[in-house]
């Protein structure tokens, strides 16, 4: 066995790489950590001249969740996000599959139209949408918000799932057909399991998209606020220490999701299907 000795150049490269990594992580990590620390600090700690708070309390979070109504908004957000995932997958998954596996007239035009849909500014759609919702009785309902979020997420879901499905080799599906499966059987027992890591990632992104969406949610709801809409209208008008607490409440689930998704994507069968 030989022992590898590092040359100066290699060592320098390693040092530069390490510092670059530290810099990038700090860029996102430092503000995140500080804001989370202040979410758990005493109210007065915010106004003391220390780099991090020295006295801690759960008071702000407790107050926001249980007295100001954030818990109710969290529940609403979860319902809306889950509904959005369900609806956009119900509609988008078959479309994504069709784009990936079949060649049909107008395929490219449709794909382009999907991307084109993303060009409409939400602000312009919002007002007519409210008018429409009031007329059909969807205004201030969670289903209404979920439908609007579905419309926003759908192009994304179709495009992502189509590339996920395109990553499932045709041979594996044909083997399923040869060995006794119907086309639906192939889809359920071969394609879906193989596409699952990619689909799961798409689902989580869709969830977060809905979870973070503030504008439509704020316009369409009044009493049934989702979390971002609630924070926008209530907590941001409150003193600073509430802003940090609100920030934590909205960031925490996203962080958990990202960590879960990461592990899930890497360890699933040890293979990478896009």
């Amino acid at each position, binding site marked *: 066995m030989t022992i590898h000795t590092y040359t100066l150049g290699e060592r320098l490269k390693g040092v530069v790489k390490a510092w670059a990594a530290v810099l990038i992580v700090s860029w996102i990590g430092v503000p995140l950590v500080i804001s989370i620390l202040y979410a758990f600090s005493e109210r007065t700690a915010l106004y003391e001249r220390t780099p991090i708070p020295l006295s801690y309390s759960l008071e702000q979070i407790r107050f926001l969740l249980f007295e100001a109504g954030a818990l109710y908004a969290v529940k609403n957000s979860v319902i809306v996000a889950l509904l959005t995932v369900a609806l956009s997958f119900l509609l988008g998954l078959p479309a994504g599959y069709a784009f990936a596996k079949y060649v049909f007239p107008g395929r490219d035009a449709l794909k382009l139209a999907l991307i084109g849909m993303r060009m409409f500014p939400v602000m312009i759609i919002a007002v007519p949408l409210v008018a429409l919702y009031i007329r059909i009785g969807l205004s201030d309902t969670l289903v209404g918000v979920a439908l609007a979020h579905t419309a926003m997420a759908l192009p994304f879901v179709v495009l992502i799932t189509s590339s996920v499905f395109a990553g499932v080799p045709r041979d*594996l599906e044909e083997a399923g057909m040869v060995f*006794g499966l119907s086309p639906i059987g192939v889809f359920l027992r071969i394609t879906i399991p193989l596409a699952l890591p990619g689909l799961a990632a798409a689902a989580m992104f869709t969830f977060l998209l809905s979870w973070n969406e503030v504008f439509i949610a704020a316009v369409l709801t009044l009493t049934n606020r989702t979390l971002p809409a609630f924070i926008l209208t209530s907590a941001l008008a409150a003193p600073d220490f509430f802003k940090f607490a609100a920030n934590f409440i909205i960031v925490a689930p996203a962080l958990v999701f990202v960590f879960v998704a990461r592990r899930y994507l890497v360890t699933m069968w040890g293979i990478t299907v896009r």
Partner: protein
Amino acid sequence: MAGVRLEGIVKRFGRTTALKGINLEIRDGEIMVLLGPSGCGKTTTLRIIAGLEKPTEGRVFFDDREVTNLPPKDRNISMVFQSYAVWPHMKVYDNIAFPLKIKKVRDEEIRRRVKWAAELLQIEELLDRYPHQLSGGQRQRVAVARAIVVEPEVLLMDEPLSNLDALLRVKMRSEIKKLQRKVGVTMVYVTHDQTEAMVIADRIAVMSEGQIMQVGSPQEVYDDPANTFVAGFIGSPQMNLIKARVVDGVIEIPGYEIKLSNQPSTLTGGNIVIGVRPEKIQIGDKPSGPHVEMEGIIDFIENLGADYIVHVKVGDTILVAKTTSLPEHVNIGTRTKIYIEEKHIHFFDSKTGTKIKLNTTKK
């Protein structure tokens, strides 16, 4: 087990015609190899037998049962894919057992059959692994095990060895043939490798540009090629194919004239192509039967260890000869006599490329 019959199969993809009328009868229990260069339609033919592709015209029969419009799952076939197509989300055991599970075979029977197939392919110790933990050769064995475990009527193989390294390929081709003999299944095997085809096939169908050029046993296709395409595709090194003219019973090749001792009357005159296999050209030793004698200069010698490939310039034409031994005096630049037995000379029509049948009595 079943025989397969293809009747007038035409397949068009948009404007290109992949198959231009395939008629082929595959006998019950034989290994039929579809051989041809890439793009000749051999894989499309296989996929039509599988039901993965529908023919534009024509019909497919398994024995007397028409299957043209049946989906693959109702044909009782199985297939080994070029990429093996072993499902990565299932362990080896589940891969092999999957076709049986779908057919709702009893658990006990599944276990017995999987064990049988795994033993046959010597992969018993791999049953508990995932495909990504296997080598290419092992994955290939899993694919074959999965294909035979269902006891199909027809076993289809689409270039199953092309992703293996050279040594393993040579080993597996004889194993596949032995396996087919043990199981007795009708097999259709697609390859572009003529050596592989010769070793595995009971009969070979040589294909080119969507058509079948010739069907016959490996020996027939080798000894008696139906046209210049088959003649050139089978055999290594390639058969010498030389443009020639027949004038008054003399065959003229560029810069040289050959006289046959026994002029066939079907060779009347005009342009032809003559074909001679390199291994049928003798350097130094005179054959006893009727033969053609030519004189040329040694242009180049390739030493392959066991054989020599000798390029001989006769007139303006280079003939390639293959021999196991060389006379001592022979070297690059030396003048030498070469001999070809007349029965080993093939004559082809220069326009159509088809073989000109000779009416002389065969020796």
